[in-house]
């Protein structure tokens, strides 16, 4: 026959030791010595059945160590104080009585300590400790359920073996599952249940061809196309370059297969580094701020027009670093193949051709021609719209002379056509414009509906100059400013959560996590708590309201000294004898009969002598009762066998 209670106690010591051993080399010397002492003292005290440190001494020790380690806590040193404190708490628990509550705390603290050890060193031994500890805790928890039903329960060796077998079956059964999930989870780049849907098939957004006039409207797709971590920039810098369209075929702009030999000089301007996390898609163009000079972290090929194409290698999530220069022009000192960029579509309507004369009269320079086209374009008062679009074979003509509304593709293709007619080499650039800056994560979230097309015109002497014809729309400002309401903030918060999740879990990578922690550390270091003095009165008022409400609640909950004494009495009886305090139809004398404790009986007599004589407790009685409450359970501890 094995008593369950002593078995649980032995298991608790084992679990505590398993929590302590892996962290022992990393904790302070005092703590390292304290644990074995507490371990020995705990065994000794358990044998004697006396717990002299219960209550105030334990609390004082805990508070002192908490203060000490809290002071040490800093961003540079976040782990050591916490782990030290865990070990201290564990030691304190060991020298106290092994009540079910204390046992559970020992298990939890031991697990925390073991987990803390992984912050210092991560060796394979950790797994051994973890599995041992999980097994022991599982057995202990099952035994604890027996213990809570009958504290003096004894099990025969056979039934004990069965209990342990069943208890161990639980973690054992979960291990294969755990391994399967561990293998599957970090590798899935997509939600598990959606893997049948091919990612990136979207009706609208970024595409490898510009086809105005094919659809009467485009929808707002708010799904995120990519997230780019970088500093916050001005709105006019947020052109994310993806693809360059250099060829018109009919009304469609495409990227020609022909690779031009074009030697660009390095553009000058502010250099911005970005880390871009594109959502999985079939598009193989890598996006970065205009003009991207270099992309690292992914196998990519670069074209002369600063288009980066990803080499096919799986379709998982990727992440790359880009270095861009913020500039409106790409210098090409040795010039370009002008004829290629002046090629017109086969059919140009007479109305459009008639405009050409206006732009070219007097053989002006590229710059002047560009200005003339721009001036003309601005004067027309075109409107930006994403619905009610013309579906036509000649969208440029329809846009310029009939409907006068359209989206970026209409603006850009019309403008580029006009430029080519005017003799200015022009091409379209596809990508995204704008983005929602997420303050929480420090990144831009760029959604599919921000896909954009703009124009690059070649101006001799300056190179490729970026022109965004959509900005000439009469309603341009309204369509691009986004609201910054409360809902947007919530969305931003949720989005940053997704981002962190993708980073930390989905694309799990230890190196990345270490970087991640370092970065977080940097960010927290830079965090300053500058208090706005105008907020001070509000803060004070808030503090006052909080204090008042706390006072009000406490005042309401225990209005009279009698009620407070009664509460603490019932709480004490509940704690010592496990008799629930909220049994409302039970009187105090009945309670006194249930426990064999003279302190309870005396309390009840003094209490009833006042309350049931319709008088209030005297000051002396209050003092006396409070003293009695503290002695409840003393007799029980001295003679543990008395109850039986």
């Amino acid at each position, binding site marked *: 026959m094995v008593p369950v209670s002593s078995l649980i106690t032995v298991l608790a010591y084992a679990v505590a030791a398993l929590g302590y051993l892996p962290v022992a080399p990393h904790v302070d010397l005092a703590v390292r010595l304290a644990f074995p002492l507490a371990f020995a003292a705990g065994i000794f005290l358990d044998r004697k059945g006396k717990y002299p440190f219960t209550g105030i001494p334990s609390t004082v020790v805990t508070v002192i160590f908490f203060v000490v380690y809290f002071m040490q806590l800093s961003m540079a040193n976040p782990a050591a104080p916490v782990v030290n404190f865990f070990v201290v708490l564990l030691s304190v628990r060991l020298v106290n009585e092994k009540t079910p509550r204390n046992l559970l705390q020992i298990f939890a603290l031991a697990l925390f300590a073991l987990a803390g050890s992984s912050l210092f060193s991560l060796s394979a031994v950790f797994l051994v400790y973890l599995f041992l500890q999980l097994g022991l805790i599982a057995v202990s928890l099952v035994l604890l359920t027996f213990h809570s039903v009958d504290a003096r329960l004894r099990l025969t060796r056979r039934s004990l073996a069965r209990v342990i077998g069943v208890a161990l079956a639980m973690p054992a059964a979960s291990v294969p599952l755990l391994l399967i999930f561990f293998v599957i989870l970090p590798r899935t780049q997509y939600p598990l249940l959606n893997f049948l849907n091919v990612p990136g098939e979207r009706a609208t957004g970024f595409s490898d061809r510009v086809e105005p006039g094919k659809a009467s409207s485009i929808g707002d797709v708010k799904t995120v196309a990519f997230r780019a971590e970088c500093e916050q920039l001005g709105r006019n810098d947020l052109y994310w370059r993806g693809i360059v369209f250099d060829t018109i075929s009919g009304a469609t702009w495409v990227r020609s297969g022909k690779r031009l030999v074009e030697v660009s000089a390095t553009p000058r301007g502010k250099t911005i580094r970005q880390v871009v996390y594109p959502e999985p898609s079939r598009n193989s163009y890598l996006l970065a701020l205009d003009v991207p000079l270099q992309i690292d972290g992914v196998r990519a090929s670069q074209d002369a027009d600063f288009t980066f194409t990803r080499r096919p290698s799986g379709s998982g999530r990727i992440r790359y670093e880009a270095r861009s220069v913020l500039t409106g022009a790409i210098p090409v000192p040795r010039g370009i193949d002008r004829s290629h960029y002046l090629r017109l579509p086969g059919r140009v309507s007479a109305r459009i051709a008639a405009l050409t004369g206006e732009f070219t009269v007097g053989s002006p320079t590229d710059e002047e021609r560009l200005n003339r086209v721009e001036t003309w374009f601005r004067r027309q008062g075109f409107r930006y719209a994403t619905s009610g679009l013309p579906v036509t074979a000649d969208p440029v003509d329809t846009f310029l002379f009939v409907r006068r509304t359209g989206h970026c593709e209409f603006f850009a293709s019309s403008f580029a056509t006009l430029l080519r007619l005017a003799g200015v080499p022009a091409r379209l650039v596809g990508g995204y414009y704008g983005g929602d800056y997420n303050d929480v994560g420090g990144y831009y979230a760029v959604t599919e509906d921000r896909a954009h097309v703009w124009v690059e015109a070649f101006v001799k002497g300056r190179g490729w100059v970026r022109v965004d014809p959509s900005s000439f729309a009469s309603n341009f400002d309204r369509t691009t400013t986004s609201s910054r309401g409360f809902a947007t903030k919530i969305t931003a918060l949720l989005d940053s959560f997704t981002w962190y999740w993708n980073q930390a879990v989905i694309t799990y990578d230890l190196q990345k996590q270490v970087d991640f922690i370092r970065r977080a550390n940097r960010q927290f270091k830079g965090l300053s708590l500058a208090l706005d003095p105008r907020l001070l009165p509000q803060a004070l008022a808030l503090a006052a309201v909080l204090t008042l409400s706390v006072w009000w609640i406490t005042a309401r909950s225990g209005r*009279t000294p*009698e*009620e407070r004494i*009664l509460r603490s009495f019932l709480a004490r009886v509940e704690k010592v004898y496990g008799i629930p305090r909220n049994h*409302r*139809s*039970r*009187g*105090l*004398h*009945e309670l006194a009969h249930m426990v064999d404790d003279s302190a309870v009986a005396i309390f009840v007599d003094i209490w*009833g*002598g006042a*309350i*049931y*004589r*319709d008088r209030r407790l005297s000051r002396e009685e209050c003092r006396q009762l409070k003293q009695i409450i503290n002695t409840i359970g003393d007799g029980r501890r001295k003679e543990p066998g008395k109850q039986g």
Partner: protein
Amino acid sequence: MNLAKRAEMLHVIDTLATHYLKGKVRAVRLSVIALLSGGHILLEDIPGLGKTTLALALAKALGLSFGRVQCTSDLLPTDITGLSIFNREESRFTFVSGPIFNNVVLVDEINRAMPKTQSALLEAMEERKVTVEGTTHHLPGPFLVIATQNPVEQVGTYPLPESQLDRFMVRSGIGYPPDIIEKAIIKGGSIRDGIQSLEPLVSANDIAEAQRAVKEGVYLSDTVVDYLYTIVAATRNHPAISSGISTRGAIGMAETAKAHAYLEGRDYVIPEDVKAIAVPVGAHRLILTMENENLDKGELLNAVLNAIPVPLA
């Protein structure tokens, strides 16, 4: 604390329960509580469990006179109260008192008497006086009626209506004694002879003094009155009860709670006193609704008690 004669009363209970009425401590205690609070007790149990012995022993130990009425269907009211008969020598009617003119009266199988006889008896119990042919005769004090009835028997009985049950302060069963005690009783045989030689343990004066101590010396606080009233009100509003505890019942509960507190050695009543006497004093006064007639009244009242919070402060 002025709990006069408490020791003597406890001595009576102790002596009876340990030497004469083994295993009947609860019934003995309730009988003493009824006596101290000036009420009467109805013992409801099958024959042969010692109801008569209990009454007899109690009368002996209390040093009181004992009368016994065995009820039958032809029992007349005058068989209980007594009657005037013509005295030939003195040439006038003289009153011959019936068995009711005793301190402790055992009314055996009360439900066998005719309603007319029953009501004469119950009237005497309530009024503590008997009027025969225009003359009122006061009954001696202390006065305790111990009535018994057999709940199982149905044929040839006149069950007491609820209104008359209300006149008994306490209704209780006796129950079988614990097996060890019962074996000892079987071995030792009837103890009727032993009871005959039982010397009085207290005097009538002691009893009167104890009754006064209960009535005047035990404090009943407003808190406990509130609690008691809550119980009474709850029985009146209970869906299974068509009529709850009456005001007389509530008074009875208060009086017996005081007697209980007195025996416990307290000069104030606590809610537990009320709980202790609630079922023996209150349960038989409940009148259940038709569809709930089969419910046990004691359990029902216990359920009501368990739903009412005890005033702790």
